[in-house]
């Protein structure tokens, strides 16, 4: 397709718009082409019909002409027979000249209807009558010594034969066959099936009509119209001795008119035959041909249309494919950008927080731990901001996704409360929590995102409320198909929002009342991320506000209800859960255990070592896949932690290699993948690759320890009694923080 590249060019330049215009032009062109095709076919069919008809008629006419010719020959022969009869008589007369009278009497008796006689060389009648008008030209040939046949209008056919005496002509015997007697003479030729015939002379004068011609036929043959046709034919007959043509007459319809010279006479056989009778089959042939051709034409046109449309479709599909590829490429590049950004940004933060944690654990000096705590807070804040920005980024490139899991609503609520209450308290705000005690709490949905949205509106309420209260309400309405509608509502007595500012709410980076709200922290991304998340979850943010009095933010999400058991008193439910849940502790030691950590960033290796210090597990490190494999060949390890993304040989390749090394003692040891960029389905992915599980970076120490507990040989694990932390609330908070960091499992 020669003009395709052109169109592609246009598309690149103009984007969607020019694509449309091209489509339109294409469609229009197509219509013209179809129209043209159809017209051309129609015209061809019409022409074919006429041409074919002409050809068939011509063919039939030629055949008839030949038949006419042979019929004319027949006529000729028939008439010549008369002469032969006369010749016989003449011979008799020659032999017995004196018995003229006798012989003639006998002969005339056999054919009384015919006029017969004998005339002398000067025309005197020797028997019978002399010739009509004494016209000797009637028997001229005979007078010169040869039999003769002459037709004269008004007289009839005159046959004559000389009667010789030695070499001289004595007299001539003649016979006159009148017009009406000709039919018996020519009786044989009447039934040739050649329609209706007549005999005319060469000037077109109708001389004799055969029997059996119907009334209208006779009329026709005598008509001016027929005379015209015969003239026509006679001209054709200049080049042949017979001719036939197809004519359409008004009286007789479609007929073939023919003429054939009667040899050895000056007459022509003329006549006509109806097309129906002569060549009815022609119509059948014509019809058949037209039928078939018509069908072919239809098939042709449809095929043409179909083919053209396919071509167009193919062209379009190609265009679409190209666009799709381009979009995918773009998307992929964005994804990898985000992924690498994610990794790049979080790695140092992970290092800061991790090492900071180590400081907090290993040192008692209050000043030091004070500084370390500040660093921790700042670090977490930074992490939050980074996560917000990354989320926003993902949102913009459509990479934000909902990851439903099973969770407990009471946990979610308590975590929210725990996070928010201290802030409210610090601002002397009254923080009220209302929870519908009848609602189910074992749910399936993306708790992380729900919590994120709820947290956002809660923190906003606190941020923008100077005095009064913040009321947090969670209510429930049962739904269909196992879903329930959960409404999270936050009502505050804050500064409120002006009606005209409502739109700006959702705009990223925009802060309302900049002057007044100048001191309030935050990136301004929260609400736009929240609205995006809510729309992904099939919900939306409801806002009502009175400027100066307060605002109410709420949203309703549908979550699958896994258990109808009502939540009851949230606090009590939570407390029960917490007491069963592990708080920070060193649950075990494993001094005989040995693990290998492979990571290209030595900071990460340092962190892991630090986190596991208290467990007394021996931690070996390697900075690359090759180093790791080398160490694996030499030492026996219980668990191997392998970083996924490493330059050169990556974690997966290293694992595969390890699994292939049959002489390696660690060939089948459990391997855990470490990744800073876990997406949904990561666990399955790594298991598929051959890992036992994975840990998300920044590494959660609880998770790490749990992993150790799960995969170390049981005999090497020494469990210790867990010391209680002094402040259960604090312990819970710490646990919350750990959990919070863990949410970045979902990326």
């Amino acid at each position, binding site marked *: 397709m020669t003009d395709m590249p052109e169109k592609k060019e246009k598309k690149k330049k103009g984007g969607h718009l020019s694509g449309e215009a091209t489509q339109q032009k294409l469609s229009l062109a197509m219509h013209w082409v179809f129209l043209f095709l159809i017209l051309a076919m129609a015209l061809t069919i019409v022409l074919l019909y006429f041409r074919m008809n002409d050809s068939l008629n011509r063919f039939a006419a030629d055949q008839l002409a030949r038949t006419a010719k042979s019929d004319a020959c027949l006529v000729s022969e028939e008439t010549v027979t008369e002469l032969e009869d006369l010749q016989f008589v003449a011979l008799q007369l020659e032999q017995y000249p004196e018995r003229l009278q006798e012989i003639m009497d006998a002969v005339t008796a056999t054919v009384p209807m015919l006029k017969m006689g004998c005339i002398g060389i000067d025309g005197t009648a020797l028997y019978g009558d002399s010739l009509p008008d004494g016209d000797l030209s009637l028997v001229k040939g005979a007078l010169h*010594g040869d039999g003769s046949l002459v037709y004269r209008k008004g007289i009839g056919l005159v046959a004559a034969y000389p009667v010789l005496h030695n070499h001289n002509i004595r007299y001539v015997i003649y016979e006159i066959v009148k017009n009406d007697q000709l039919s018996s003479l020519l009786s044989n030729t009447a039934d040739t099936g050649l329609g209706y015939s007549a005999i005319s002379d060469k000037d077109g004068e109708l001389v004799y009509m055969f029997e059996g011609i119907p009334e209208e036929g006779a009329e026709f043959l005598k008509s001016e119209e027929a005379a015209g046709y015969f003239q026509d034919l006679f001209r054709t007959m200049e080049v042949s001795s017979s001719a036939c043509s197809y004519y359409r007459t008004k009286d007789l319809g479609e007929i073939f008119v023919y003429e054939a010279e009667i040899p050895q006479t000056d007459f022509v056989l003329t006549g006509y035959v109806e097309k129906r009778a002569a060549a009815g089959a022609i119509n059948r042939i014509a019809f058949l041909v037209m039928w078939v051709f018509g069908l072919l034409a239809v098939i042709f046109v449809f095929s043409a249309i179909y083919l053209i449309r396919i071509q167009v479709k193919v062209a379009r599909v190609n265009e679409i494919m190209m666009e799709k590829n381009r979009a995918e490429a773009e998307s992929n590049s964005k994804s990898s950008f985000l992924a690498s950004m994610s990794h790049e940004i979080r790695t140092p933060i992970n290092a800061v927080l991790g090492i900071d944690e180590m400081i907090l654990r290993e040192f008692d000096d209050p000043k030091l731990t004070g500084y370390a705590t500040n660093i921790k807070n700042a670090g977490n804040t930074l992490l939050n901001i980074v996560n917000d920005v990354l989320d926003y980024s993902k949102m913009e490139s459509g990479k934000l996704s909902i990851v439903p899991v099973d969770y407990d609503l009471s946990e979610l609520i308590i975590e929210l409360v725990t996070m928010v209450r201290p802030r409210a308290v610090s601002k002397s705000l009254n923080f009220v929590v209302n929870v519908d005690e009848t609602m189910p709490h074992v749910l399936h949905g993306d708790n992380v995102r729900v919590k994120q949205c709820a947290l956002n509106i809660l923190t906003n309420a606190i941020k923008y409320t100077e005095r009064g209260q913040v009321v947090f309400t969670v209510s429930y309405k049962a739904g269909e198909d196992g879903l329930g509608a959960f409404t999270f509502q936050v009502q505050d007595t804050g500064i409120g929002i002006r009606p005209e500012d409502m739109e700006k709410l959702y705009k990223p980076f925009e802060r309302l009342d900049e002057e007044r709200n100048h001191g309030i922290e935050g990136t301004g991304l929260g609400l736009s991320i929240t609205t995006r998340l809510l729309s992904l979850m099939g919900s939306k943010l409801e806002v009502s506000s009175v400027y100066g009095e307060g605002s109410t933010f709420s949203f309703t999400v549908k979550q699958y209800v896994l258990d109808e058991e009502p939540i009851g008193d949230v606090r009590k439910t939570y407390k029960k859960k917490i007491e069963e849940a592990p708080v920070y502790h060193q649950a075990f030691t494993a001094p005989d255990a040995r693990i290998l950590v492979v990571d290209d960033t030595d900071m990460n290796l340092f962190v892991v070592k630090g986190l596991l210090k208290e467990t007394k597990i021996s931690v070996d490190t390697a900075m690359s896949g090759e180093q790791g494999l080398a160490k694996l060949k030499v030492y026996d390890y219980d668990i191997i932690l392998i970083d996924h993304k490493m330059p050169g040989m990556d974690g997966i390749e290293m694992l595969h290699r390890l699994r292939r090394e049959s002489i390696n003692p660690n060939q089948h040891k459990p391997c855990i993948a470490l990744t800073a960029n876990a997406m949904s389905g990561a666990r399955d992915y790594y298991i598929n690759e051959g890992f036992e599980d994975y840990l998300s970076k920044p590494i959660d120490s609880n998770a790490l320890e749990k992993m150790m507990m799960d995969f170390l040989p049981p005999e090497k694990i020494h469990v210790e009694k867990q010391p209680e932390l002094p402040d259960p609330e604090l312990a819970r908070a710490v646990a919350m923080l750990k959990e919070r960091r863990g949410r970045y499992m979902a990326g």
Partner: protein
Amino acid sequence: MKKLTIFFTVLIAAIFLGVIGIRVSAPEQDITKKVTKVGVVLNGTKDDHSWNQAHADAFDAIDDELNLEVFYRENVGYGDQAQETMEELIANGCSIIFAESVGFGNAVLAEEQKHPDVYFYHCSGTRYGDNYTAFFMRNYQSRYLAGIAAGYATQTGCIGYTAAYPYTEVIRGIDAFTLGVRYANPEATVCVKYTESWDDYDKAYAATKDLIQNEDCDVIIYHTDTLAPLVCANDLSVKSIGNNYDNRNRYPDSLLCCLEMNWAPYYEKEIRTCLEGRFYGKYDWLGLDEGVCGITPLTANEGANRGKAEAAINIRKKEMEDGTWDVFFGPVYSNTGDLQIESNEAASDYYLLNDLNWYVQGVAVDD
């Protein structure tokens, strides 16, 4: 997209053209549209003021109208040369051959066998077949009328007849002439001298001279192609009757009248028939009544009896045109006294053409 459109357009155009173009060809209507090549074989030159020129004149009259290209071959001898000439003409593309002399008969017969698609016309021949026709004029009728003129003109009662060969045609001519002479002048005689050549000038001149000087003939008629007898008669100041061509202006003091021929109507009719594909071989003997032959009007040289001569000529002419009488109607006696044709009888054409070999009363052949 474009390619497809082009493809379909071409396909349709092909179908279209096929439907238009494939047609049943109608036969050519106008036979004179094409040039027809005609070969004319002459045993003399076409400007001989005689037999051959008469034929040439006829073709000249019709060749434009019928779109003919006429090829003349002059001085063609009988025998092999005739056949070779005809071959050459046919090879040249001639579709009709006119052989204008009796001696070409054998050549015609041979050639017609070899070329069944060529039409042959043999003038003064007698045989015909599928693709050849023989034709002639009833010159005897003309000679009869000339005989009347001679009979009324002669003072000495002796009319000289210089003739080429003694065969049917010539004898027939002599007999017809003599019958005419006798009709006018029952006492007159016709002296015949043969030259044994159609165109030998000297022989013809000598024979004529002999007739005039030794036989006391004062009217000369001849049956040769050469004009020698006329020249001689003119030289010796005797009356003469021309043959084949109207030469009255050339010998104004001598000629009484001339036998003449007009082949144009016949040739036209026949050539048309050939072109129309309606030819069939026949024998055409065309007479006075068909305008092919006749005599010119009498000149002043006829003398005192001119009026009578003309009247008699007209009577007989009319009778011949009516068909109520012809030259060889009986009674006719040979010069040996036999009644050859009885009264109320007429010689048949066949006989006249093939078997007439006796002389009528009044004929004296000089050996």
